[in-house]
C-alpha cells in the first residue's frame, strides 16, 4: 500500500480523528475522518454517498456514543429509515433513543418567490437546534447542493454554504457533506472549494454489465492515508471497504497438516497432505476431476468434524451431491449434520463485489475450516474484461482465509489452447500449493494425470501420477515411465501386466534354483556323514592297535621279571631299574 504524507512530520498525533466504524475505511485513513471538521463525500448518482453518511451517523450513535444529526435535502426521514433498514440500521429506534435526529429540508422552487436580500439563517437555526437537542457530535448534510435547485441567488448560496461549513467547524461537530459529481468537477456546484480538509470520492463503474464500486481518499489534509482506489461493497451490514486486513502480510501460519482425502495425494505431499490454512489451487481442463478432488478434501475435513463451505458457481447443491455420490463420496450426510454448507450461485447474478460480500458474510456466519470455491475461473464473466479485478478479489479472499486460518481450495478451469502453467486468473503466485490436472492422450484414449506443480514449504513429489475416478473416489496409480513419457490407461495396464508376468517368472526361477541348491546341500551333507563314519572306524582301529602293543609290552616285561626272579638277581637296585627300563622303551 502506498501512503501519502502531506507534511514531513507525522501528524496523526496532533490531528484527532473520528472513527466512522465503516469496515475498512478507518484502516485506510488511519483512524477515520478528521474530528470536528467537515469532510466531503462525492460521487455519481447511486454510488453510496448517502449510505456512507448514514452509516457514519448510525455507527457513531451505536458504537461510539456520539449522537448525530442528519439533514436531508433529498429524502424524507421515512425514506431514509426504510433504506437504512435494509442495511441493518434502525434509524427510527435511534431517533427514539435520542441518538439521532433526522431533519428533512424540503425546498420547492414553485412555491417560493424571492424579493430582496436574504440569508440562510433559518437553515443554521434548524441545524443548530437539531444539534443542541441531543448534543450531537456528528452531522450529515445530504446534499446541500439541492439548495441550488431551490434558490435563485447563487452568490448568496455560495457565501452561506461557506459560512455554514465554517460554522459547523466552530461548533466542533464532525460533518459529512455529500455532493453529486459534476462534469469535470467533484461536485456539481463546486462546493469542494469550501470543504477542503478531507475529500472522499466514491465511484461505481459498469464493466460488461457488472458494477464494481470503488472508493478513493482524494485528499486528507494533515494526515497520512491510503491513496489507492479500493473496491467497496454495500452489503447487509452496510459498507465494507476491502481490503480490511491485507495491509500487511502478517498472518499467523500453521504447521498443522490436513489430509487431502486422497491417500495417494497425501503421499505426494510428504505423506501428510496440505498445510492447514494454506491456499490450494487445482487447475485443469474440463472434466479432469477438479470438483472431485474438492469433494475429497471436504469429505476428509467433515470426517474430522470441521465445518466446511462450498461455493459452487456451476452446479446446484443437488447436482453436486449426485455427482459426488457417483464416485462414492456422500456429502449429503455432512449437510445433514450441519458441517457442510453448499452455496450455489451463478457467477453472473451479480458483480464481483457482491460475490465477495457473500463470501465474507458466509465466512463470518459459518466459520469454516475449509473453503472450496469451484471454479474460480467462472467468476471471470463477473469481472468482465478486467481480470485484474478478479485477481484482486481472489487476493482478498485468500487474505481473509489466511487471517482466519482457513484452508482455501480453489479450482480453475484452463481452456485447451492455453499453456498448462497459466491459469486464467493469474493467481498462481498467490497460492501455496498448486495441483495440475491434465489429460494425456495416447493410444486412442484420454487419461488423467496429476502432478504437484508447487507446494510451498514441503518436499513434494515431482512425479506425474495417473489417477482414476473409481466408484470409491479418486485413486492414484503408480507412475510408469515408458519411452514416450508417463504411461497411462491401457498402456499402463499393459505395463502392469508385463511386470506381473516378469515377477512370476523370476519367482519361478528362483524357486528352482533354491531347490537345486538344497539338493546339492543335502548331497554334501550325506558325504560328510559317510566320511565321518569312516573316520570313526579308522580311529577305532587305531586305538585297538595301540592297546595290543601295550599288552604285548606288558607281557614281555612280566616275562623278564619272572626270569630275573628265577635267576635270583639281587633286588636292592630295584628302584633304579624301572627308570633304566623306561629310558630303554
Amino acid at each position, binding site marked *: 500500500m502506498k501512503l501519502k504524507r502531506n507534511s514531513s512530520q507525522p501528524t496523526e498525533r496532533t490531528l484527532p480523528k473520528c472513527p466512522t466504524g465503516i469496515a475498512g475505511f478507518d484502516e485506510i485513513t488511519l483512524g477515520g475522518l478528521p474530528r470536528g471538521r467537515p469532510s466531503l463525500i462525492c460521487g455519481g448518482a447511486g454510488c453510496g454517498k448517502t449510505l456512507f453518511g448514514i452509516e457514519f451517523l448510525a455507527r457513531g450513535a451505536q458504537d461510539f456514543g456520539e449522537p448525530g444529526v442528519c439533514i436531508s435535502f433529498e429524502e424524507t426521514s421515512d425514506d431514509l429509515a426504510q433504506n437504512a433498514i435494509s442495511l441493518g440500521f434502525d434509524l427510527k429506534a435511534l431517533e427514539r433513543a435520542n441518538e439521532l435526529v433526522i*431533519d428533512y*429540508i*424540503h*425546498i420547492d422552487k414553485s*412555491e*417560493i*418567490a*424571492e*424579493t*430582496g*436580500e*436574504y*440569508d*440562510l*439563517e*433559518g*437553515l443554521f*437555526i*434548524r441545524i*443548530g*437546534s437539531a444539534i443542541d437537542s441531543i448534543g450531537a457530535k456528528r452531522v450529515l448534510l445530504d446534499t446541500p447542493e439541492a*439548495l441550488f435547485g431551490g*434558490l435563485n441567488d447563487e452568490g448568496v448560496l455560495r457565501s452561506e454554504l461557506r459560512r455554514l461549513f465554517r460554522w459547523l467547524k466552530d461548533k466542533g461537530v464532525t460533518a459529512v457533506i455529500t455532493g453529486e459529481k459534476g462534469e469535470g468537477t467533484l461536485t456539481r456546484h463546486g462546493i469542494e472549494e469550501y470543504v477542503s480538509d478531507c475529500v472522499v470520492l466514491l465511484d461505481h463503474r459498469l464493466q460488461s454489465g457488472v458494477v464494481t464500486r470503488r472508493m478513493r481518499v482524494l485528499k486528507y489534509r494533515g494526515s497520512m492515508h491510503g491513496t489507492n482506489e479500493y473496491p467497496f461493497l454495500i452489503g447487509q451490514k452496510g459498507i465494507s471497504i476491502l481490503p480490511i486486513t491485507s495491509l500487511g502480510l502478517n498472518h499467523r501460519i500453521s504447521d498443522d497438516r490436513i489430509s487431502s482425502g486422497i491417500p495417494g495425494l497425501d503421499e505426494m505431499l510428504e505423506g501428510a497432505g496440505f498445510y492447514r490454512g494454506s491456499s490450494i489451487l487445482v487447475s485443469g481442463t474440463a472434466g479432469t476431476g477438479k470438483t472431485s478432488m474438492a469433494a475429497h478434501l471436504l469429505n476428509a475435513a467433515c470426517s474430522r468434524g470441521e465445518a466446511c463451505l462450498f461455493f459452487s458457481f456451476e452446479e446446484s447443491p443437488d447436482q453436486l451431491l449426485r455427482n459426488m455420490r457417483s464416485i462414492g463420496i456422500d456429502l449429503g450426510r455432512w449437510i445433514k449434520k450441519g458441517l457442510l454448507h453448499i452455496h450455489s450461485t451463478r457467477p453472473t447474478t451479480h458483480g464481483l463485489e457482491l460475490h465477495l460480500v457473500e463470501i465474507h458474510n458466509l465466512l463470518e456466519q459459518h466459520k469454516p475450516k475449509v473453503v472450496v470455491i469451484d471454479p474460480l475461473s467462472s467468476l471471470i464473466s463477473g469481472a468482465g474484461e478486467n481480470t485484474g479485478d478478479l485477481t484482486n478479489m481472489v487476493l482478498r479472499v485468500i487474505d481473509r482465509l489466511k487471517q482466519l486460518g482457513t484452508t482455501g481450495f480453489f479450482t480453475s478451469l484452463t481452456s485447451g489452447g492455453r499453456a498448462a502453467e497459466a491459469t486464467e486468473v493469474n493467481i498462481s503466485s498467490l497460492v501455496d500449493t498448486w495441483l495440475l490436472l491434465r489429460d494425456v492422450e495416447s493410444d486412442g484414449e484420454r487419461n488423467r494425470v496429476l502432478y504437484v506443480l508447487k507446494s510451498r514449504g514441503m518436499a513434494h513429489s515431482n512425479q506425474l501420477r495417473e489417477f482414476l475416478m473409481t466408484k470409491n473416489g479418486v485413486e492414484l496409480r503408480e507412475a510408469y515411465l515408458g519411452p514416450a513419457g508417463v504411461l497411462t490407461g491401457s498402456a499402463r495396464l499393459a505395463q502392469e501386466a508385463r511386470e506381473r508376468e516378469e515377477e512370476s517368472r523370476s519367482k519361478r526361477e528362483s524357486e528352482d534354483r533354491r531347490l537345486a541348491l538344497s539338493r546339492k546341500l543335502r548331497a554334501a551333507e550325506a558325504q560328510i556323514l559317510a566320511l565321518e563314519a569312516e573316520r570313526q572306524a579308522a580311529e577305532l582301529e587305531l586305538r585297538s592297535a595301540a592297546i595290543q602293543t601295550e599288552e604285548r609290552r606288558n607281557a614281555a616285561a612280566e616275562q623278564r621279571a619272572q626270569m630275573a626272579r628265577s635267576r635270583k638277581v639281587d633286588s636292592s637296585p630295584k628302584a633304579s631299574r624301572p627308570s633304566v627300563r623306561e629310558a630303554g622303551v
Partner: protein
Amino acid sequence: MATRRDGNGKVEYDLRLYVAGQTPRSVQAFANLTKICEEHLAGRYRIAVIDLLEHPQLAKGDQILAIPTLVRTLPEPIRKIIGDLSNKERVLVGLDVRSTG
C-alpha cells in the same frame, strides 16, 4: 382549498413572517410588509412575526431556510416569499394579491 372571507366577501390573508432576531433586514422586511398590506389588504390581513432565535423548533413546520421568509398560510395554497420584501410588485405577485383581490 381553505379560504376565509371577510364580511364583504373579500379573501382574508394570514401571513407569517419568520425572522431571526432584530436584524436590520428583518426590521426592513416587516416595515415593507405592513406597508404593502395596508395599501392592498387593509383590514383583511393578519401578520404573525416568528422569531426563530426564540422558537427554533418552528422552523421545521414551514420548511424555513432563508431569513426573512414570509409565508402565506391563508388563503391556500401556501406560498413563500423570501427576502426583505423590498420589491413591492414581486411581493404582490408572490402573495397572489392581484388576482384574488
